[in-house]
């Protein structure tokens, strides 16, 4: 099963096999717009590196003070952001 999954994983890599000149020929514009997606990865730093933003008790959610659920929420948000960046910048 694991072996099979690993096989699958290599498939996207094979999907961009193309003539040797291709990767050097990609238009700079297209490349720049792909790179712009990486700015999404800055958001977790902005959200978390300034504790005054979230070091408070209210509002409480499911019994969790804000300080706690805010940081838990960032775990999910940053994972989604990373996933978006991966999908958006992957070459098809």
């Amino acid at each position, binding site marked *: 099963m*694991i*072996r099979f*999954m*690993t096989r699958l*994983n*290599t498939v*996207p*890599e*094979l999907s*961009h*096999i*193309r003539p*040797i000149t291709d*990767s*050097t020929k990609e238009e700079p514009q297209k490349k720049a717009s792909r790179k712009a997606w*990486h700015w999404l*990865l*800055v958001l*977790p*730093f902005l959200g*978390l*590196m*300034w*504790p*005054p933003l979230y*070091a*408070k*008790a209210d509002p*409480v959610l*499911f*019994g*969790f*003070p804000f*300080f*706690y659920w805010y*940081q*838990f929420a*960032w*775990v*999910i948000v*940053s*994972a*989604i*952001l*990373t*996933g978006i*960046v*991966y999908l958006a910048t*992957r*070459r098809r």
Partner: protein
Amino acid sequence: MVNWTELYVFVFFFLVVTVLGFVAARWRRGNLNRIEEWGLAGRRFGTIVTWFLVGGDFYTAYTVIAVPALVFGLGAMGLFALPYTIIVYPIVYLTMPRLWSVAKQHGFVTPADFVRGRYGSPGLALAVTFTGILATMPYIALQLVGIQVVIRALGVIGAGWMNDLPLITAFVILALYTYTSGLRAPALIALVKDSMIYIMVIAAVTMIPAALGGYGEVFKLADKALAAKATPGHLILPAAGFSAYATLAFGSALAAFVYPHTITGILSSSSGHVIKRNAALLPAYTFLLGLIALLGLMALAAGINVPTPNDAVPQLFLKMFPSWFTGFCFAAIVIGALVPAAIMSIAAANLFTRNIYREYIRPDVTQQQEAKVAKLVSLVVKLGALAFVIFLPLQYAIVLQLLGGIWIVETFPAIVFGLFSRWLHHRALLVGWFAGMITGTAMVATSGFKSAIYTLHLGSMTIPAYAGVYALAVNLVVAVVLTSIFDAIGIKRLPDTTQREDYEEDTVRAVDTELRKAA
């Protein structure tokens, strides 16, 4: 006082992973007489195995014990582990695929291999090697502490040296299967270990709060217990702790993936894409870690009273769970110590073999001898860690691990900046590294080696922050200033064996290798 049900369950799971550890030698069979196969499992792990391996490697048993212990002792400050393990992944996403790609292209096995190739400087590579081994050794020792805490909670107490017998047994078994199976052993065991830890945590964070009257009640009771402490803790981070909290998270995140053992995990994956996918998938462990941190609050709410905070979580389990499940949880923690301990000893052995033995002792070493040396060194490293824990006070290991984090982050400029640019001069990096090591150590020394937080006085301002971040700042300033000076007076730069396209996996050559592999 021994609870037999608990002990049976515990021993059963320990035996299962022992068998797995030896069987692993046959898993995805490769020639284990080559260091790339023994020490990196042939760089063939896909997304799922890498997820388990890096998860088991990065979120160690010590974490499972120490993070809730910190929350148990201090409250909110201990939660810095959460922002730390969130922001670490954007950093991994942006840097580690480049390291993987260049390492694959040039057959690099260790971070020091890369530094050697990139800057051409044996001195700088030696600094990275030295720091890596120095920071890893106490980390291995602390995994043993995780095991000790559990054995103590199981009630297995003998007289004199017999007291250490369970620990010695566990470690000798670990040393043997790491020797025979290399990185495959912890990778296979990680599949079991992580599944067990997930079950443990999910059970703990649903059942314990239910027994205590819900999360609202847990937070309320924990708040009271924290306020009643001799040095009161806080449920919500107070303003005085802001700068320490943020810099601890930031500095730890920079350090996390320049540790040799995490890089070993990264390099054993099969492509940069695997690493990028994992940067999005590994936060599942971060969520788990956050829940584990809450166990510290639950222990407070449950009125657990222990002399050392490290015992808080085991005591909480003993109090709240039926004995068979406690045995299961304890097994999960111990196995959780074995996985990172194995990977750390492999990483340290790779460093020694590639960057000291091959570089300075036997440059003409054959591949087979190289693998042999690495295997033997992995044994020596583990015995060293064992002796450390048995013969020296626990406090030494804790202090050294604290310092280890500050030291390892001093290799960040050489390794991570090196992935993007060669602007910094290798000599400047070396002097910067040295300045950072001294500054960081001196800052921790001012607290009598008790705290990683250093308070900087700037005029009328006082800024308490993680010493690792201050030391890194000193390191960078020195490196930048000296680079300008060294280039101006014309100190020669050494050749770079890597090329620009080696860092981008999606370039021609990587496709080329994929083609060959597929054929």
